[in-house]
């Protein structure tokens, strides 16, 4: 299973990368947060030797192999909610998440 970006998310990431520079973005899962695990979303300046690499709408997505099982099949979306806007994970592996959506269990 792969990782994908929505058209909207990809457009956003591309424009951010244009301004900032970097080879792509990195998704990861950390063991922390109120429900056990948390997402991390970062710019990537370099790829590690073990990183899995996905391409979606012209954006390179890097994921370390330990995070991959928890993220497999995830679609990253960019949404606007009122004045606030940001990225949202649509992750089929999630069984439960805390109210804020930053932390989850599989």
């Amino acid at each position, binding site marked *: 299973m792969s990782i994908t970006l929505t058209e909207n998310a990809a457009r956003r990431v591309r424009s951010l990368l244009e301004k900032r520079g970097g080879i792509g973005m990195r998704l990861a899962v950390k063991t922390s947060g*109120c429900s056990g695990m948390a997402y991390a*979303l970062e710019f*990537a300046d370099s790829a590690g030797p073990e990183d899995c690499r996905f391409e979606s709408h012209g954006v390179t997505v890097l994921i370390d192999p330990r995070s991959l099982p928890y993220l497999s099949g995830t679609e990253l979306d960019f949404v606007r909610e009122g004045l*606030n806007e*940001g990225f949202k994970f649509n992750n089929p592996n999630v069984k439960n998440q805390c109210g804020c*959506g*930053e932390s989850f269990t599989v």
Partner: protein
Amino acid sequence: MALLQIAEPGMSAAPHQHRLAVGIDLGTTNSLVASIISGAVRVLEDETGRRLLPSVVQYPAPGVAPVVGVQALAAQDADPRNTLSSIKRLMGRSLADVGPLQDMPYVFADAAGGVGIRTAAGIKTPVEISAEILRSLRLRAETALGGALTGAVITVPAYFDDAQRQATKDAARLAGLNVLRLLNEPTAAAVAYGLDNGSEGLFAVYDLGGGTFDISVLRLTNGVFEVLATGGDAALGGDDFDLRIYRWLLDSAGLDDLPPPETRRLLTLARRAKEALSDADYTIIDAQAAQRDIRLRLTRATFDELTVELVQRSLARTRSTLRDAGLAAGELTGVILVGGSTRMPNVRSAVRDFFGRDALTNLDPDQVVGIGAAMQANVLAGNRGASDWLLLDVCPLSLGLETMGGLVEKIIPRNSTLPLARAQDFTTFKDGQTAMSVHVVQGERELVSDCRSLARFELRGIPPMVAGAARIRVSFQIDADGLLSVSAREQSTGVEAAIDVRPSYGLTDEAISAMLRDALQSGGVDAQVRALREAQVEARQLIDATETALAQDGSTLLSPHERDAIAHALYALANVVETGGPDSSGALRAAAESLNLATQDFAARRMNASVQRALAGRRLEDLAPSPAADPMRSAA
């Protein structure tokens, strides 16, 4: 659910621990808030998409929440007394400081610690009014960023003094903002252009706003900006350009002065015409005034002619500020334009001609200060790597030394910008004193016991000298990281001792504000206590000196009767020092005076005796400047 932003590599925050930081440009006319979102700077908008918040607050009635921004600005004509604008000019000022304010239609009153303005909702201070503006920006930021703010960087004019900076900080605290730092506006502009990434340079920041003009000269060395000179004109801005067009309109249409509502409408048209001329070579002004239709064509050439005097005035200020900084226009490595009025082509070309180089203009001049503040806030909140630390801080409380009598001698006043170094000379108190204890304290109070002790160390190996002869230079240095080091050096022998301290370490904001409050409230008491302690110290010095003199020469130079008189005065003074209460500073001075009087003859005789001793057994020619020419020589 929370929406995520992209972080710098390795910097993603744990859930619920996002460090949301904003930069706020708290302006005289307009304010704005900006933040770094997914690595890019964004000036945050309100619900209607506006970025600039007019710095206007209306207090419509008692118990009614104040109105801030566009709605308040709209209410200014209808409710001028309760609608407050340009409040920044009053920050940290007392009524005496600001002088007569004919252009402000407010009812002024004295408030605790400064100017107050009487409104429908009671007396409001500039701090409270600014806090309303800041609160409005904070709410905007929290809605847009989806969480509570970790902190904010707020910009202030480079010429703001301690009181004005402190007032700005107080306003932020009142608005529920944690101030990460106050940043000088020209420095923020330089940061926005990334000039801090270079290692050194000299920059001029030309800031022509709506009503004020500021020119600052900055020097960058090792990533730290230093303000070399500031200047400007508090009554020169975009509004004056509008006024020139308005006058021209009246002249061209053959009109006399108009009633206020029509004046205001024409001024708005004048502003639009000015803005249009930034892109076009001419513009048509269609207006109705005095029951007439007016249609006029204003060319850029005419506009330039109308306003050339205003532009020249700004350049004259620029020239004198450069002179203050000891620089020539050609020596600068960069020029930055700030403020919406620098969009005018005639201003740009005049600045270019003056400095002989193109100015940096690619960022929006209305937003550049806020953008720089946001970038700095992002670094300070810890959202970037430590290598990006750029520190331009002020020290929150005064730093000083304990002197005799438990008094504080302030060496670095609070709100001094960092980094800095200050030195002051001290001396010994007792004859033959060979060591000195250096006690570093922090706070605004006059007595050591009311301030916070930071560090203590001793300087040993001072050569024995009479009291007051040794010269010990104590230097305070605070580097860009806020680290204080204190060193003491005896000037004649070069013996030295030093210590490192962290001045703000362990002091919470509450503690700082409590100390400041304390200092303000007890200023009068402190002055009394200080006077008493000083009198006590002087008295002890006098007692010591008299005792030494009595022991040396008392038996040879004084009759028993005289000796008794001195001893009596001495005892009386010692008695007041030991037993005198808190009100005894007058009694101390009187007792010291009578001891002085009693020893006057004794002192004169000692002086004679020591001169005699020095001259005893020496011939006159040994003392004369040129013995060879002295005719007495052969006779002897």
